[in-house]
């Protein structure tokens, strides 16, 4: 069953189209990844789903409720962890969660237990009476995830949950996120521009310039790139290259003194190669395709931050436009 349904969704900010005719569905109980470079339209889509923005055209539903017309029902069934922290730094961790519990009208008898469970689950129980301003970036993000779970939402939105965290905190946070669907009976909708993090998702949609350019499971998407790449160093590349080409009927290229070939199943081919030209092989390595390669193949550009400066400009344009005119 689809818990999130988006139909032909568009959002314009003045003359800029941040989201263009986007449609997708998210199965209940899964982790759905919305991937793309900065400024691709991820946050705008989340804000529409969270009822903070209304779409220019198209529709979005969360567990059957229209995000535009029934904001109250939608708000009850979602939890949100925004890209920028929305904690009150002058309150303790416990107080922040208590604030949330009251705001969502959690029953008095359940409040304490739910807060304690969430703090335990995200490994923050020992710090519950500390002011949030003493927390590290990773702890704040974990606390926000804990807060998002207090009212038992059916969908939890995570907008760039690991942005700005060090690798260790990122790994730590992921440990918790992947357990959420099963342990808390919640569907995860997350955005990220770190492609490698999206590997944990059940389904992925890749968005660029406001349009979904491809979608599928991580494995399906990576298959579209054309398979694994085997890199071989030999004692005599000039001879070994044509030899492999003839034996296996594939194109072999030479780059920086290394032969490389693209095949569907690299792990199965390596033993064959060793068996036939084994005496010449110095080293072999196998590179599996990443989601980055998927993005690269479709758009012809890298997703990494250094290559998205034009998108950043767009992001800023959208933000300043929203500040000025459209708070709806």
């Amino acid at each position, binding site marked *: 069953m689809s818990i999130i349904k988006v139909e032909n969704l568009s959002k314009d900010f003045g003359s800029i189209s941040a989201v263009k005719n986007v449609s997708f569905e998210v199965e209940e109980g899964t982790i759905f990844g919305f991937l793309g470079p900065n400024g691709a339209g991820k946050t705008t889509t989340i804000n529409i789903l969270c009822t903070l923005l209304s779409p220019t055209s198209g529709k979005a539903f969360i567990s059957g409720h229209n995000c535009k017309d029934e904001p109250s029902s939608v708000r009850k069934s979602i939890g949100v962890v925004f890209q920028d922290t929305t904690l009150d730094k002058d309150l303790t961790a416990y107080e922040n969660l208590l604030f949330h519990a009251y705001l969502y009208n*959690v029953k008095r008898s359940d409040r304490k237990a739910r807060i304690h469970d969430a703090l335990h689950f995200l490994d923050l129980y020992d710090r519950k009476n500390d002011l949030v301003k003493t927390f590290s970036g990773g702890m704040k993000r974990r606390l926000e995830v804990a807060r998002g779970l207090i009212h038992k939402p059916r969908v939890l939105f995570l907008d760039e949950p690991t942005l700005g965290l060090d690798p260790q905190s990122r790994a730590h946070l992921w440990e918790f996120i992947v357990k959420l669907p099963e342990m808390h009976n919640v569907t995860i909708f997350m955005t990220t521009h770190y492609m490698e993090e999206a590997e944990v998702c059940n389904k992925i949609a890749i968005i660029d310039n406001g349009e979904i350019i491809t979608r599928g499971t991580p494995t399906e998407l990576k298959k579209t790139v054309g398979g694994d790449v085997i890199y071989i160093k030999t004692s005599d590349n000039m001879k070994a290259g044509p030899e492999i080409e003839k034996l296996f009927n594939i194109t072999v290229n030479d780059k920086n003194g290394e032969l490389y070939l693209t095949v569907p199943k690299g792990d199965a081919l390596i033993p064959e190669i060793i068996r036939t030209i084994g005496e010449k092989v110095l080293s072999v390595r196998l590179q599996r395709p990443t989601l980055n390669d998927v993005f690269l193949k479709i758009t012809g550009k890298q997703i990494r931050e250094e290559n998205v400066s034009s998108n950043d400009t767009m992001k800023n344009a959208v933000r300043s436009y929203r500040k000025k005119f459209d708070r709806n």
Partner: protein
Amino acid sequence: MQCGHTGRNLIETNAVYVIVAREFKKFIREKSRLISTLARPLIWLFLVGGGMSKLVSFGSGISYMQFIFPGILGMTILFSSIFSSISIIWDKEFGLMKEILVAPVSRFSIVIGKALSGMVISVLQTIIILMLFPFLGMELSILSILSIIGIASLLAFCISALGIIVATFFESFESFGAIINFIVMPMFFLSGAMYPVDKLPSILKVITRINPLTYGVDAFKHAIFSDSSIHDFSLLTDLTFLVISSIIAVAVASFLFERKG
């Protein structure tokens, strides 16, 4: 759906309660804020009022310092209510407002919660200033103290609600200075707090007539002085104006909040 029936109620009491409780807790925690907000009325009362007492005298045996005492109570409320409400700008900039806006809480409840927060904090400060009356050579009955607290609550609610309207128009705290210079200070001086309003030129008099602080200060004068020549309006007029402007301010603030977030 474990989360109850919030959608059906006009005011979500839990949400209103927790918005007020948060402000209150933060207020209690920040001692420096309490001291700095109390410093302003004390400086005006003793340094300005004390100095001017030597120059200005009222025939009716009221010293200038006593004359401005109702205005100083009004000032305490004006500043702390406005500060409390424009903390919304702070919340917008540092994110907590988003947490409130995605919650299943009506915008009306958020406005009521914020206005009550301003009211609670202002009234607490007003009570502290009010307790200085013996040092000014004044005598107040329990009844007039209670009525001052009642008027203070009404005035503080009204000004907090107006502050919320102001806050919806600003996105960042950089505008803070403009709010103080172009809204708060004129409201203070054109309220009869420092001098009787009937001495003002007629253009400025119009402004005093639409300024809720004028009516609040006037109501304080009713509660503090028995001499009737010192009031500009009847107590009934004062209270009616404050009630009506509170209702209008809450309605406008809720409308703006709904539209702008």
